[in-house]
Each structure stands twice: as structure tokens, then as C-alpha cells.
């Protein structure tokens, strides 16, 4: 009898393991839809003369971020949660020694970076994080269209996707992260370490990159530069929302595995309890609130779909614990304020072509701080946490928001300044006027034009 029970338990464990592996594996193609969306969004927001260059830039951001995340990005996540000392944290799943053992594609560690029948987790976790990394690069990509050089942008994408955001994630999106253990930072859906870091990285680059030719007049007033295909942009934004479901699914730690926090309950990355049902309520309500808020303010489909993104980002930090009606209120406010915030930024001479700094950066900060106001007192870590672990607080969320701002802005500004000094940042104005596609792309976006032939029927 005992043998039969043991056999049943063993078989159940096999099923659980394959379910967990398949679950995370399927978040990866879902997250790829974020990139489909950003590609469509960005190309639609570009003028015809630059549309293929924007597509190439976006594709390369994805590809080089993924590759370099394999080389070294994954290592940073496990090595630096406690800070740049690389010491081991309370949960003993961090530190340079731990990272060296599991996250380098050479030496003994390589067994966890490739096919291994004893390891059903490393690849799917790496894959999900690699797609998070590529998402950050895609976020920044849209802000910089029509005047950034391709190779220079690739270097920036690598710095953002395989260094800046993953350092921020180690600090604030890891159970041993110092922002979590010392400040009680809670950021379930990565409003900070993905969105705010990417948004403010883009701001740092934009300062050195400068505006597109023709964006600003001599008196400082701004001109609207319309993209060639609003439909592609709006559909792209909706695809990003679809991809967010995969993104947020991947933020859950499933139960019952050796790496799980608990045997029978799902948790956040911090080990705090949560359910997929919570996400079902809150993601769709957030997207809807954001659309409604943006419509109320602008009546513009571009800003309405941007509002959907903003709505989700505004509540991302607390998607696991917010009540639905609270989500509606926060998301609607976020949708309503994005256009004024984007206009305010433009007033400083910043040409953010798609509003990425506002939607991801400003709203990411707004979301982190709102959680500090509304969820103050919630434990930041699960039941396994040390007794002196911090709880969620306004101060902790505010301090963490500042850290996220700096983690994005500083490397974005410094690396783009370096690229500018060696002539690898800005496309020459003469090329911008002629168009990037005719100068450097061996293909045409619309070789037969956009008009259709008259029907004889």
C-alpha cells in the first residue's frame, strides 16, 4: 500500500513538474507578442521614409538583448540582489558565488544553461526573464525613432536589457533584493524594474540624442510629426496588452516544485500569496480604466491605447493585492494624465516620439508610489521572511521609485553621451531629411504605393 501511495505521489510530482515547465514555456511566446506589438506600434508611428529602419532597430534590440542576456545578463540577477558587494542574502539564493554556480554559459555552471534532464526550470525561467529584458529594450526603442543610429542603439539596448534593468530587478524583484528586505519594496508586475527603468533610460538617451529634424521651431514650439499608419500603431498597442498577460503570468511562482515557496499555493516572486484569479480581475480592469481615462481627456485612439498600457503599468506593482474597483480608479487617473504629462515633457525640448518616457517612466513611478499609499503595512515578504523584514510603506516605495529612476536614467545618459562623443548616436540631419530607409535599407516598405487599382467589376 505504501509503495502504491509513493508511486502515485511520484507520478503526481512528474505531472506537476511538466505543468510548471509548460506554464513558463508558454509565457514566452505570449511575451513575444509584446514585441510584435512594439514592432507594429513603432513602425506605424514612423513616417514612410523611415519605416523599415525602425523595424530593423526594433528587431535587433530584441535579438541582441536576448543573446547578451544569455552571456551575462542572467548572472547579474543572481549575483547582485544584496548590492554591488555580491554577498549572499538571507534566502541563500543570491550572491556572486551562487550566480557563478548557476548562471554562466561556461564551466560547471553551463549545465544549467543548456539541455539537462535534471533541470526543468532554469531554461524556462531564463527564457521568461530574457523576454522581460527584451521588453525593456523595445520600450526605449520607440522613443528614439527616426534619428538614432542602428549600431549605437544596439549597444544601448544591450546596456539596458542585459545590465540596467536586471540590476534593478535584482535589487527590487528578488526575495533577497535589498530594496525588498530593507525598504519593503513591492513591485509584483514590474512597474519599476521594467517600465520605469526603461522609460527613464530612454529619457537619458533622448537628452543626448536631440529631437528629430523639424520637430521644434526656432521659437521652441513643437510640431506634431504624424506616423504613417495609425492603425498599425493602435493594433500594436493592443498586441502589447495581449503580451502583458504572458508577462504577468510569468511573475508568479507556481507551487509544488523544489524551487517553489510553498507546496500548495502560488506566490509572487517575493513569496507572498497570490492567485491567477487576482490577475484576471485586475489586468482587464486596468486596461479598460486606462482607455476610458485617456478617452475622457483626449478622444484620440493613440492615447486611448497608450492609456490601456498606462492603466496596467499604474497598478502593476499591486496587481496581486489590489481590489478591482481600486484598480479602475488608479488606471482611469493614469489614462487621463498621460497626455498632459507627455506635453509637459515636450515643453523641455524632449522629442519622445511615442510617449514612452511618460507611459512607462512617469506612470511607473506613479504606480509604485500609489501602492505605498494604499498598501502600507502589508508584509513585503512571505512567511519564510526574517522577523525584521520590512513591510510595504510610502517611504519604501518612494525611495525605491527614486532608485528605479536612477537605475534607468544614469546608464542611459552616460552611455549615450559616450556614443555621442564617438559619433555613433545621432543620424546626420541630411540623412534624416532624405530618409533612413533610402540611405541604408536594401528594401522598400511600400514598393507599389498605398493606393489600390480601380475595379473593373
Amino acid at each position, binding site marked *: 500500500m505504501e509503495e502504491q501511495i509513493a508511486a502515485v505521489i511520484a507520478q503526481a510530482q512528474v505531472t506537476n513538474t511538466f505543468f510548471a515547465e509548460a506554464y513558463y514555456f508558454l509565457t514566452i511566446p505570449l511575451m513575444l507578442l509584446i514585441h510584435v506589438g512594439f514592432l507594429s506600434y513603432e513602425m506605424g508611428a514612423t513616417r514612410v521614409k523611415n519605416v523599415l529602419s525602425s523595424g530593423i532597430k526594433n528587431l535587433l534590440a530584441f535579438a541582441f538583448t536576448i543573446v547578451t542576456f544569455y552571456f551575462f545578463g542572467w548572472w547579474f540577477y543572481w549575483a547582485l540582489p544584496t548590492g554591488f558587494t555580491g554577498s549572499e542574502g538571507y534566502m541563500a539564493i543570491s550572491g556572486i558565488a551562487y550566480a557563478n554556480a548557476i548562471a554562466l554559459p561556461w564551466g560547471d555552471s553551463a*549545465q*544549467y544553461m543548456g539541455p539537462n534532464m535534471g533541470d526543468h526550470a532554469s531554461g524556462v525561467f531564463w527564457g521568461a526573464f530574457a523576454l522581460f529584458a527584451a521588453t525593456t529594450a523595445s520600450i526605449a526603442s520607440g522613443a528614439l525613432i527616426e534619428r538614432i543610429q542602428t549600431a549605437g542603439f*544596439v549597444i544601448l539596448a544591450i546596456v539596458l536589457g542585459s545590465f540596467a534593468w536586471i540590476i534593478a530587478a535584482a535589487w527590487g524583484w528578488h526575495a533577497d533584493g535589498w530594496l525588498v528586505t530593507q525598504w519593503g519594496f513591492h513591485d509584483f508586475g514590474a512597474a519599476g524594474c521594467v517600465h520605469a527603468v526603461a522609460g527613464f533610460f530612454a529619457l537619458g538617451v533622448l537628452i543626448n540624442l536631440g529631437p528629430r529634424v523639424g520637430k521644434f521651431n526656432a521659437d521652441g514650439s513643437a510640431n506634431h510629426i504624424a506616423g504613417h499608419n495609425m492603425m498599425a500603431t493602435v493594433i500594436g498597442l493592443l498586441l502589447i496588452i495581449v503580451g502583458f498577460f504572458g508577462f504577468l503570468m510569468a511573475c508568479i511562482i507556481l507551487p509544488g516544485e523544489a524551487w517553489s515557496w510553498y507546496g500548495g499555493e502560488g506566490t509572487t516572486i517575493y513569496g507572498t500569496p497570490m492567485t491567477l484569479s487576482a490577475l484576471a480581475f485586475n489586468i482587464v480592469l486596468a486596461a479598460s480604466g486606462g482607455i476610458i481615462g485617456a478617452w475622457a481627456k483626449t478622444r484620440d485612439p493613440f492615447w486611448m491605447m497608450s492609456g490601456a498600457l498606462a492603466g496596467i503599468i499604474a497598478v502593476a506593482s499591486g496587481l496581486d493585492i489590489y481590489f478591482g474597483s481600486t484598480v479602475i480608479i488608479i488606471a482611469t487617473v493614469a489614462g487621463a494624465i498621460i497626455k498632459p504629462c507627455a506635453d509637459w515633457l515636450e515643453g523641455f525640448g524632449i522629442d519622445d516620439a511615442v510617449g514612452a518616457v511618460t507611459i512607462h517612466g512617469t506612470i511607473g513611478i506613479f504606480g509604485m508610489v500609489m501602492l505605498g499609499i494604499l498598501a502600507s503595512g502589508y508584509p513585503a515578504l512571505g512567511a519564510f521572511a526574517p522577523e525584521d523584514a520590512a513591510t510595504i510603506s510610502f517611504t519604501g516605495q518612494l525611495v525605491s521609485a527614486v532608485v528605479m529612476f536612477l537605475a534607468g536614467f544614469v546608464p542611459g545618459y552616460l552611455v549615450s553621451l559616450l556614443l555621442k562623443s564617438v559619433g555613433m548616436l545621432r543620424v546626420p540631419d541630411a540623412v534624416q531629411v532624405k530618409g533612413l530607409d533610402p540611405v*541604408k535599407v536594401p528594401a522598400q516598405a511600400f514598393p507599389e504605393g498605398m493606393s489600390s487599382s480601380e475595379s473593373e467589376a
Partner: protein
Amino acid sequence: MGFPLESWDAAFADIGMFVGADGGAGWYTAIAVIMMIGIIIAGNNSEQEKYNKHQ
């Protein structure tokens, strides 16, 4: 290169079973890193040539 294990049974331990698991992983990684750096440099050179024609 070649099969790194005694048999497929050995693959069910917690051990890499990929081509190069017996010591070549680092070399493959080094070659891949050099390829990527070379491609970025070549890409940038090509890009600058095109811009220079319009300066």
C-alpha cells in the same frame, strides 16, 4: 564534441547532456561572443560609410 556521457541513462542525473558538456561550453560561448562583437563593429562601419556619402 561528441557524446559526453556514458549512456542515455546517465543523462537523467542533474548534468548537462548538450554537445560540449564535457568541457567545450566555454569555447562555444567565447566564439559566439566574438561573433557578436564582430557583427556590431562591421555593422557600424557599414552604417558610417552610408552616412558619410550624405555629409
